């Protein structure tokens, strides 16, 4: 009996990815978690345990901002779940219709905003919606609905929803593509078998296709969740680090940025910033765990 040879090539092939990932993801992540346990007293770093978290959740100056940002984050996420994903699924269902003409054109057109920079999206939409130069007020006037126009990005009650919808517009291509791919992978035989049993048209979508693409919808939901709770760019590009008006668009990302790097006269505090980053990490971790253990294990998979 020969002892199985140690498979060196596995190590060699794994090494680059593991090293790069460790250097730029794992190490900074753990260092951030560690940094959250320190504070700075007279230019020296001292260990304070969970004191930063007590400040974050116990001191009303901090906790109010934190809960406000978290609440806004959930709203941001709900808008995506309620608008982006259903529209993505609907568009994918329409685009996968075999008799639709120019499907490739629509697919590309809807996907293009996804690859644009946040800065461009933020700036373009700010101009579109601008009460002074924007085309939104003129368009509404042209169809006689000018009274519906408001300076949305400047109003506390609309600003966050407006930004969420801009983000939906940008990213609707992602669920579209994933669902589209899932729909294409459904074998014809299954659908034909359904047709023989009298299930056609919309019924075929609800009774055959939708159950088969549920795992993809699950993946999209979790991607949306992680993406939204890590969001920062669009808000920063459109509203600045102070996430106005009156913090109504402040999400955890902007709150963390402001705290970590400072803003205007507010000096940066890397330790409190890390504490917020750690809280964000915790929230996302909990969300992902709920999905992995609570939902994904219950999803039924079909093998064709």
């Amino acid at each position: 009996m020969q002892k199985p040879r140690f498979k060196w090539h596995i190590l060699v092939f794994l090494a680059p990815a593991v090293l790069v990932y460790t250097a730029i993801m794992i190490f900074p992540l753990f260092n951030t978690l560690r940094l959250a346990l320190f504070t700075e007293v007279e230019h020296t770093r001292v260990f304070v345990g969970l004191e930063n978290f007590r400040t974050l959740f116990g001191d009303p100056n901090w906790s109010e901002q934190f809960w406000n940002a978290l609440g806004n984050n959930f709203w941001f996420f709900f808008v995506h779940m309620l608008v982006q994903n259903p529209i993505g699924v609907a568009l994918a269902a329409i685009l996968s219709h075999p008799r639709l003409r120019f499907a490739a054109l629509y697919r590309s057109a809807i996907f293009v905003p996804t690859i644009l920079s946040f800065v461009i999206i933020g700036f373009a939409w700010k101009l579109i919606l601008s009460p002074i130069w924007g085309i939104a007020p003129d368009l509404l006037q042209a169809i006689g609905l000018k009274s519906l126009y408001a300076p949305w990005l400047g109003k506390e009650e609309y600003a966050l929803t407006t930004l969420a919808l801009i983000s939906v517009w940008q990213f609707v291509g992602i669920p579209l593509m994933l669902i589209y791919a899932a729909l294409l992978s459904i074998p014809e035989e299954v659908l034909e078998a359904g047709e023989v049993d009298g299930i056609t048209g919309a019924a075929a979508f609800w009774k055959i296709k939708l159950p088969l693409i549920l795992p993809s919808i699950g993946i999209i939901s979790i991607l949306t969740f992680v993406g939204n709770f890590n969001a920062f760019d669009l808000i920063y590009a459109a509203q600045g680090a102070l996430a106005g008006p009156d913090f109504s668009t402040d999400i955890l990302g902007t709150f963390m940025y402001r705290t970590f790097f400072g803003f205007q006269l507010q000096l940066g505090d890397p330790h409190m910033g890390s504490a917020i980053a750690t809280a964000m990490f915790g929230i996302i971790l909990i969300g992902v765990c709920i999905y992995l253990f609570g939902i994904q294990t219950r999803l039924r998979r079909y093998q064709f």
Partner: protein
Amino acid sequence: MKNRKILAAALLGSTMLAGAAAAEVTLTIESWRNDDLTLWQDKIIPAFEAANPGIKVKFTPSAPAEYNAVLNSKLDAGSAGDLITCRPFDASLALYEAGHLADLSDLEGMSNFSDVAKSAWQNDDASATFCVPMASVIHGFIYNKDAFAELGIEAAEAAAEFFAAVEKINEDGSYIPMAMGTNDQWEAATMGYNNIGPNYWKGEEGRLALITGDQKLTDEPWVAPYRTLAKWGEYLGDGYEAQTYPDSQNLFTLGRAAIYPAGSWEITGFNAQADFEMGAFKPPVQNAGDTCYISDHTDIAIGMNAKSPNAEAAKTFLNWVGSSEFASIYANALPGFFSLSNHEVAMEDPLAQEFVSWRGECESTIRSTYQILSRGTPNLENDTWGASVAAIKGTKSPEQLGAELQTGLASWYAPQQ
């Protein structure tokens, strides 16, 4: 083989020669004034390099909103430039205390500046000065002279005249009375609250009383400006809630708005953009005949990276910043940034001349939130942005805003407890 050695020696020799030729020092300047890039490249740097052969200067600005964050990261990483443009007060003080900015108290050029000018870049007991003051900015209102002539109104002296004027512009309807938005928030505080405020809290008197704890933000002088701002809302034009800072600048320079609540730093840009004649009036006093107070804010200075390998060259540059040559180039190339030095500087721009003439008529002060009071959490300056916006929009009453700010300040600032 031998040939090859000779070739190698020749190559080596030539690189060493090139090294010797490049022995001049290059100084890099960190700044947030990306608007001034051409000014530095075309005027300031050539003037300095002509007088100091052997020193090259590079001006590398970043975006104003990101400057503090970018600079702090660069300093911590050791990749910051030799010369650091200094924000006033705590941002720079923190850099000095962290050992990033060198103590420049003994610099020869420092003797050209008054104590008030240096106060923004000293530690609390004024024992060390760490930046050479460059310029201050003055707040006021810039107006469209053609529009005022057309409507037959005069520049206002007192609050009542001011509101009569904007009311008249509003009724006429051909101009937006005032170009200001609340989207970016800081204009409301900087060009609103801290522009008109000194007339209410009597400049330095009120500002220092707030620092010592003798006055509170709930006192009338600090609440009254919010009451005045609350009246601005209806004169700011449709959709001001989503109007950004560049929007406001464009509205004014395109001639669509009659008055622009301003800081003098706008002058250069406005001169280039506007094709009508502009005038300026100072923040209106409460009642005609009152002493006027203006915000003459120490805004910009320049210091030295303590870890700079080119300290000698950097000091040469900083001494030159204290010279009358620099003061004159800077003040004339950038009308609206007024020299803080004791040199007599002749200015050609009429609008800048108008602003600076107020120094003779009124008492000067600096922005109320900048010294000491924005050290803690919550940050008074940032809160003032939000409060000024809320006052203009009318979402909260002036008294409520005063009470909230006072609670925030008292939560960490001992003299106010």
